[in-house]
């Protein structure tokens, strides 16, 4: 019983983004996390484009690849301008690990099962990242330009979350 409960708690932590549970973050760490979160979603999109034949899913994946690439390009330009070197950290590593596990899980699926799992994960992933942006990354950011980029990023990713929910509703 206790083991079952602990598994449930662990699963819940994963879902709610335990990757973000950590102490006060610095700007170089925040930049690294935001960039990593974008790259991971690009990789997820690439997997979807390689596997899915669903028109809506493919269009969504193309949007993710295009938007996250554009935002990350802006992020790189900003860190260069600010002479900040993004710093790897526990949150980035946990996100990367979770995404690798998700990719491995999705790799085993095909057709409609893949589409559903990919889009469900996109909804959950954007929820997690948006929650972290709102409650941790944006409030912790020191530099105003970084904060502003994160705020715009949040609006973009909230749009993605809604877009993913719309695609998800069509798959049901």
């Amino acid at each position, binding site marked *: 019983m206790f083991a079952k409960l602990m598994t449930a708690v662990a699963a819940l932590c994963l879902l709610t983004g335990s990757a973000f549970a950590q102490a006060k973050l610095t700007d170089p760490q925040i930049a690294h996390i935001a960039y990593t979160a974008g790259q991971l979603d690009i990789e997820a999109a690439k997997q979807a484009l390689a596997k899915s034949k669903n028109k809506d899913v493919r269009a969504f994946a193309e*949007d993710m690849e*295009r*938007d996250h690439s*554009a*935002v990350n*390009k*802006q992020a790189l330009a900003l860190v260069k301008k600010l002479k900040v070197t993004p710093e790897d950290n526990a949150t980035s590593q946990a996100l990367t690990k979770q995404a690798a596990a998700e990719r491995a899980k999705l790799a085993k699926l095909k057709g409609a099962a893949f589409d559903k799992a990919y889009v469900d994960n996109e909804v959950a992933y954007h929820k997690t990242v948006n929650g972290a942006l709102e409650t941790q990354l944006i409030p912790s950011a020191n530099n105003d330009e970084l904060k502003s980029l994160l*705020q*715009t990023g949040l*609006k*973009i990713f*909230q*749009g*993605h979350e*809604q*877009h993913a929910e*719309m695609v998800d509703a069509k798959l049901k």
Partner: protein
Amino acid sequence: MTPRRTHLTILLLSGLLSASAHAANIQITIDKLVYAPAEVSAKVGDTVEWINKDVIAHTATARNGDWDLMVGPSKTARLVLKKAGAVDYFCKFHPNMKARVTVAP
């Protein structure tokens, strides 16, 4: 008046005339995922221009299906309004972006 001058005068006049009879040009800026102004009033025949200042692509997609414009990053898209009525529109890529064009006959 030389023939050339006359020609120029006619050109200028016709330019003025067509300008006064010309429909209005309404500009809507898209900046940081916000359509501004969020509500515009126009007339049939007017042109609406969406000017995208973001680094990502957006759309101006009518909820009633009348029009669907892609506005690339740092690009402008134009639409000549053909039908009267209030049209709610949104961005297909970021459905949290919403606005409205009200078109008078």
